[in-house]
């Protein structure tokens, strides 16, 4: 379980007059479940990239626990991300031709870690997300099932942080609700800090806190209680 402290983060792209993301201060407590919303182009994806270390913040500090990932080299960020972040993406990014189990194990395999040590956990996770056939090829799965595989994959190494980028956007409402429930339940059970970028009101409403981005800045940050109102 890791908490996040952003300070003075500013991301600019060459040719654009204003920074795409400007966050003087943002804190997320360990174990907190946070929604990030905002219109497209408001900097949500950039925020995900910065807090996962996919992109390096040239300005400011991005602290998860005691580690400022903005100071890490690219290779070190990859290693840190593999260790600490579980990522669920809109397009699943499963690899066709591999079974559900192999997809779950792929990231540890590519890091050269023994997959055998993770096998039992992978099977258990697949069962927990409701998939009974770990050997099924992902090419034959429904979209809802695919996203469940992706959730299992994200949790394999017991990450302290679970980040979901539009996890329900490409699913029908029913599967979306199922995946949303899974994310909340598993983040709690696994003790992971949860950050969800979403337009899905049903999902956003079930989170502790909501951060709304507009033009790269935090617009309003209503308290959890306000959401219900």
């Amino acid at each position, binding site marked *: 379980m890791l908490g996040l402290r952003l300070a003075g983060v500013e991301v600019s792209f060459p040719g654009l007059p204003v920074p795409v993301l400007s966050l003087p201060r943002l804190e997320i407590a360990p174990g907190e479940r946070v929604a990030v919303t905002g219109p497209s182009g408001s900097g949500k994806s950039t925020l995900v990239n910065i807090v996962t270390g996919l992109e390096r913040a040239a300005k400011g500090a991005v602290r998860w626990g005691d580690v400022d990932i903005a100071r890490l080299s690219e290779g070190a960020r990859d*290693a840190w991300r*593999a260790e600490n972040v579980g990522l669920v993406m809109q397009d699943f*990014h499963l690899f066709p031709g591999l079974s559900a189990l*192999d997809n779950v194990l792929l*990231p540890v*395999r590519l890091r050269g870690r023994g997959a055998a040590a993770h096998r039992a956990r992978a099977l258990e996770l697949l069962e927990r997300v409701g998939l009974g056939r770990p050997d099924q090829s992902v090419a034959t799965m429904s979209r809802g099932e695919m996203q469940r595989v992706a959730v299992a994959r994200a949790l394999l190494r017991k990450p302290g942080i679970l980040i979901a980028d539009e996890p329900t956007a490409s699913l029908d409402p029913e599967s979306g609700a199922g995946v949303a429930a899974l994310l909340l339940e598993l983040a709690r059970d696994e003790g992971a800090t949860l950050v969800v970028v979403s337009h899905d009101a049903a999902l956003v409403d079930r989170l502790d806190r909501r951060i709304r981005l507009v033009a790269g800045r935090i617009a309003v940050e209503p308290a959890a209680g306000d959401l219900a109102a």
Partner: protein
Amino acid sequence: MIRFVLADLRRLWAGSLVVVLLVALATALGVAVTLQERALRLGSARAADRFDLVVGAAGSETQLVLSSIFLQPSPLPLVPGKVLHDLARDPRVAWAAPVGFGDNVDGYPLVGTTAALIDGAGGGLAEGRAFATRAEAVVGSAVPFRLDHELKPMHGLAGEGGHTHDEIAYRVVGRMAPTGTPWDRAILVPIEAVWGVHGMGAHADQDHSAGGEGAHDGRDPAHDHDHAEDLAAAALGGPWSAEAPGVPAILVKPKTFADAYKLRGEYRSGATLAVFPGEVLTALYATLGDAKAVLGAVAIGAQALVAAAILLVTVVHVSQRRRQIGALRALGAPRLALFGIVWTELFLLVGGGILIGIGLGYGAARVLSGLFTRESGVVLPVEFVRGDLSLLVGLLAVSALLAALPALLAYRQPPAAGLRA
């Protein structure tokens, strides 16, 4: 990782197959050219190996060797019988055998000579016996006539039309062991018979001119009287008189190396020409080498084009896979793993193509050599040499380097940019 690579290749099997085939064909082209040229060299050298010295009338050295050793049909000027007489009696000569061409049986060249060539040019007798009279023949291993078969020679060089000689028929009395040379397709008959058929023998001379008397001086007096008796009982294979009829070429086996050089020197002046077949082949190989250089350049050009095409395809392919690469990075895959995936995929395809291409090239060279052997009798040995191994290693090294370029692109690609695409 290898499991991911294999799953990926299975998914992209059509494109992978095209890459493998392209590489295989380009490699096969180069391999076939190299192997075929080497086979031609080795095969012709082996075919000429057993002939030390060829003496003919002044003219083209190449033509002399091609006709007398490779039995390629061509009309050669004749050397006077005196040369044969002198060589046969020369103490430095182990044996000297005339070769007279002109006729064929069903396309198999008829060679008039002496029994010495059964061992000297053929592989010795495999069955039957040597010819003992004018009307007998010994066939090469690849000639499809059985013992006791009667051969009706056609006038004209093999491969040309001509009329049948009714005046003589040969009976097959022996068959030679295979040698892998054009002599496997030859039919050996006594040179005296060829002379006779073409009106060059003693009898022709006797019939038409007084000059013929001279030709008889060294012979059995019986020749002068009875044609039939002569056919049956002539002493074949010399000794020949100085007035013996001319022959197109004489194959000479000198006793020593030194003798070979001395004889070559002596018979290179005036009306005769003496050559070591190896010498002439070396000159031919120089020409062959030029042709090989051209073909080799074409093959290398083709390979370079294929390499460029594959490089282009893979660079495009890697950029199309930006999302996949970005996703793998997002899931925590190290950059080296992505380099490894792209490099392994490409190297497997290209390396596999190269290996298949070597097989294809070898097969093509074998087929071509087989066709050539059927036509000419020369066995072309298609074989790899140790040097080919370094060529293979070199090719694989180049493909390893080529594969590294798109792999480097994958390595350097920022993951966030890939995911956004």
